[in-house]
């Protein structure tokens, strides 16, 4: 199949917290639950660690959507940092809409360590929603290599700025 005739597979960058949502993803894996492979997960210690820069970088690098997930309100391992993530999510969404990015491309998902099934179901749902929105095409020429590049630079904490600016 050529590049043009391939069906659109959304590239989604996901951020999980170490204590709940990553455990939920782990649970889904251990339980052999099948769900869409479109989300590339990055583990942070806490959803409160999520710098909005990560989200903008993902979009700028060619991601079609971004998932932010953390512990349920009240359950945060760091007391209340997931509320911070929630407020950032609300504000980010407003800015992204002004940039012309559909609000449906940014999702906030609470998942406890026991909610592997919910996590898998929500990802399936999200992938279909993003598929319906179509490709974001922010950086059309760089899309194929995006996911790994963004992931690596986020994990290493070293923004690969030169590439983003290129």
């Amino acid at each position, binding site marked *: 199949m050529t590049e043009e005739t391939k069906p659109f597979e959304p590239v989604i960058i996901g951020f999980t917290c170490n204590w709940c949502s990553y455990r939920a993803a782990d649970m889904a894996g251990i339980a052999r639950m099948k769900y869409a492979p479109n989300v590339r997960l990055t583990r942070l210690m806490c959803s409160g660690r999520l*710098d*909005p*820069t990560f*989200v*903008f*970088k993902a*979009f*700028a690098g060619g991601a079609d959507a971004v998932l932010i997930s953390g512990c349920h*309100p009240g359950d945060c391992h760091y007391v*209340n940092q997931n*509320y*911070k993530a*929630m*407020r*950032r999510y*609300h*504000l*980010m969404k*407003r*800015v992204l809409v*002004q*940039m*012309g*990015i559909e609000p449906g491309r940014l999702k906030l998902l609470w998942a406890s360590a026991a909610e592997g099934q919910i996590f898998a179901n929500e990802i399936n749902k999200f992938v279909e929603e993003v598929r319906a929105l179509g490709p*974001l*095409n*922010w*950086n*059309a*020429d760089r899309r194929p290599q995006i996911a790994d590049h963004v992931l690596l630079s986020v994990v290493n904490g070293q*923004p690969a*700025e030169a590439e*983003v*600016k290129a």
Partner: protein
Amino acid sequence: MSKPKFAMYWAASCGGCEISVLNIHEKILDVDANFEVVFWPVAMDAKYKDVEAMEDGSITLCLFNGGMRNDENEHIAKLLRRKSKIMVAFGSCACEGCIPGLGNFSTVDQLIDTAFTTLSTDNPKNLRPQTSYDAPEGALHIPTMNPMLKTLDQVVDVDYYMPGCPPESHQITAVVELVIAALQGSAQLPPKGATIGAGNSTVCDECTRKRNEKLIKAFGRIQFTHTDPELCLLEQGIPCNGLATRSGCNARCPSAGAQCIGCYGPAEGVVDYGARLISAFASVIDSEKPEEIDQILDGLVDPAGQFYRFNLAGSLLRGSKSAHHQSNGS
């Protein structure tokens, strides 16, 4: 011995940078005493062909202000880069796009429509500018607009960045003195890529207002708010950008009772200025209820404008989706 050569150019900018250079008062005489001004369209008559005739690398110092809005801007940026030893992105427009960079929220057609059809324009025939025209004397061309405004370093290699809208005169003086001292061998220039003529910290660091814990229940606009002159503006719900903005201006605006709008650009280590501010503003909102958070955020009437006023073209996203799609033809 002939004097080292100096050039200054304006691309998509307002001319304020040139005013701030002239605002260094009698220091301008030092510039004249130490440099031969070879090209400075706002101050003296010169033609592009004169610059083209110069030897590559023959201009010692080029202060380039303005963003890359059209092909003429890019052409001159590349030309001056070739002819200059030290290329300084001078002022916010060249560094990060500044106000002209806000055009990246829109497509070129939208910008032109706004300029040629809105209420303040008398254009009964609904004309639009053409980029070329066959006159009896020969073909005429005007520059073509780029789909998006670019910063100087998105087009050419830049040696130093000098932020500010415009750069403060005392900072320009310091930089001019440094370059002169370096030419005389009594000082060293900073490493390539450095930000010069500014601090390494944030505006908050220079601000003298009192700071306590920030817990915000409502954002307000400064023109409708009575503010305490002693207290941190952000604590009073005024969206002040000082916490992500580079120091160097002596916190001029907060000292004068106005919020920092971020003209000195991202502070040291900030990758995306707006993202840093989103992070900070969201952190200090005093609510854990989604509805209430939304209500508080309604007080920020134009978040993207608030966070990217000077920085859109130099930010990670660079512009809106429509501007990008026009740019990559999809």
